[in-house]
């Protein structure tokens, strides 16, 4: 009950903040721009050469929400999530409002959990917004194949998917992409409890992202690939195979939960025992 009230307050703060909407707007804008170029030029990567998914999209705009999430996953979405998560506690500390929340008193654990919920809500909201906007952009700018509308769509494995299956798989991609953000979000949140600068906390989350991306691309570091948070970020593509290839998706989810569990426990331990001098 008390947690629900506080979470409500945190969500209202997020919603009342212009920056939230600007970042969601920018996230949605990128896939629209890509769709506009694809739709006007019809120059998709040729099948078998470019990213597998974008070539399929050109023929069917209904696939575009998943493709759009694929576009924002590597950089845009984690940047936005890190900014929000890094701001969670450090932003309040920098503005001086943290001490007033805590003397209300909002319990420290409760505040941290409410902030986590707000970060998750932002991530989910951003993913849903990108999916909805890109569905509209996809169907309007890319069009649907005359024969495909309301009938079937080809999966990556060549079999056909009914519109219901397509919807379910798009929802699965949305869920998977959201979960993929847990690791960097949890690190930004942990740093947010340690420093009084939201910028430093957000950059810390992004540093993990960059480091992980570099190491994933480095064969010499293959020993630790399975521990890197970005290792399975692109496994969402497997959700469009037929049957769905769950192996990497499952590993990806477990890895994100592992990172989030460790980092959030550290965040809790640091925040509940720390002197608030901001």
């Amino acid at each position, binding site marked *: *009950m*008390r947690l629900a*009230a*506080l979470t*409500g*307050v945190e969500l*209202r*703060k997020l919603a*009342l*903040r*212009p920056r939230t909407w600007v970042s969601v707007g920018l996230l949605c804008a990128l896939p629209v721009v890509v769709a506009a170029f694809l739709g006007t030029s019809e120059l998709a990567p040729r099948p078998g050469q470019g990213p597998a998914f974008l070539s399929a999209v050109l023929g069917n705009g209904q696939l575009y929400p998943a493709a759009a999430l694929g576009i924002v996953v590597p950089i845009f979405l984690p940047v936005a999530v890190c900014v929000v998560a890094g701001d969670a506690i450090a932003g309040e500390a920098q*503005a*001086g*409002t943290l*001490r*007033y*929340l*805590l*003397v*209300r*008193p*909002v*319990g420290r654990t409760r505040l941290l959990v409410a902030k986590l919920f707000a970060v998750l809500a932002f991530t989910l909201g951003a993913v849903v917004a990108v999916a909805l906007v890109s569905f509209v952009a996809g169907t309007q700018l890319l069009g649907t194949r005359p024969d495909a509308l309301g009938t079937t769509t080809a999966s990556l494995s060549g079999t056909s998917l009914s519109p219901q299956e397509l919807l379910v798989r798009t929802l699965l991609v949305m869920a998977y992409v959201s979960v993929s953000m847990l690791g960097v979000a949890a690190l930004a949140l942990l740093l947010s409890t340690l420093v009084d600068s939201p910028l430093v906390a957000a950059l810390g989350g992004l540093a993990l992202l960059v480091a992980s991306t570099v190491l994933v691309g480095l064969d010499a570091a293959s020993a630790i690939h399975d521990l890197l948070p970005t290792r399975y970020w692109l496994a969402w593509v497997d959700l469009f195979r037929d049957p769905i290839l769950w192996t990497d998706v499952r590993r990806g989810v477990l890895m994100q939960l592992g990172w989030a569990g460790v980092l959030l426990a550290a965040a809790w331990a640091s925040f509940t*025992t720390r*002197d*608030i*001098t901001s």
Partner: protein
Amino acid sequence: MSDLAVQTQGLTKRFGRVQAVTDVDLRVTEGDRYGFLGPNGSGKTATVRMLLGLVLPTAGRVRVLGGRVPQDAARVLPQVGAMVEGPAAIGHLSGRANLRLLDAAVPTPGGRRTRRRRVEDALEALGLAQVGRRPVRAYSLGMRQRLGIASALVRRPRLLVLDEPTNGLDPQGIALVTDLLLQLSAQGTTLLVSSHLLSEVEHLCTRVGVMDRGHLVVQDDVDALRAPTGRLLVTLAVRDQDDDDGARAAALAGQLLGSRLLESPVPAPDPGAAGVRLVVADAGDVVGDLVRGGLAVREAVVERRTLTDVVLSRTTAVGEGMGA
């Protein structure tokens, strides 16, 4: 159960290698208007933060309104209103929106309407009810300060902890806040006010504690601290102090008072009337002796210590703004 609103025992705080607060035994009785004084860096703020559970003590105990802090903070702090180290609010929201959000963060008894009413009352009390939808970012320093106090008042606390409450206020604002604090005190609210403005504390407070280098060096009632110094300031009326008359009066006073005269008589500083100023030990019938000796006493005042004297004599650090 004690009737102490705030009690600390051996309160000590180290930040790394810096000893911020050492063995402080603070005692604030319910109903007190307690002035918490001390130079910058004397440990006042760290102490206040420990009272509110923001900073965790290295050693010692804190009791606020009968509960332990930080253990019982969830029960105790709802009855405490606080402003620590200046007001803070979300800049792009209005003052009203800020207070509502903060009030909603911890649900209190009473429905939404009761809560809104209390927010309006607090804004009203600080003269902010008419500010409307203006974002806090566009507030003046004084308005932000008043919003900070309003925020502390929303839940009608039993104990009000205010750090520099009149900082940045114009004279009208200072009068408004001082009157409000006296009014709240009359209604039974305990006040713990830290300030650099000693004259303000002298007028507002019934009790003071003075911090110096992490130690509580003075803790007493204002009346007791402002005890007579044992000196009497006497002014004699003379016809013309530049004339021999003034010198004769001074010489006669010296004979009459003997060793009770502490300093050589000087012309009185009062520009309106001629006079001689005497500093006399307050012993025996000084005025009677002077009058019987044929001198005209215009004024005799018992000298009292000022709070400034007390604080300056007991603190070692040179603090910015102290005694100003």
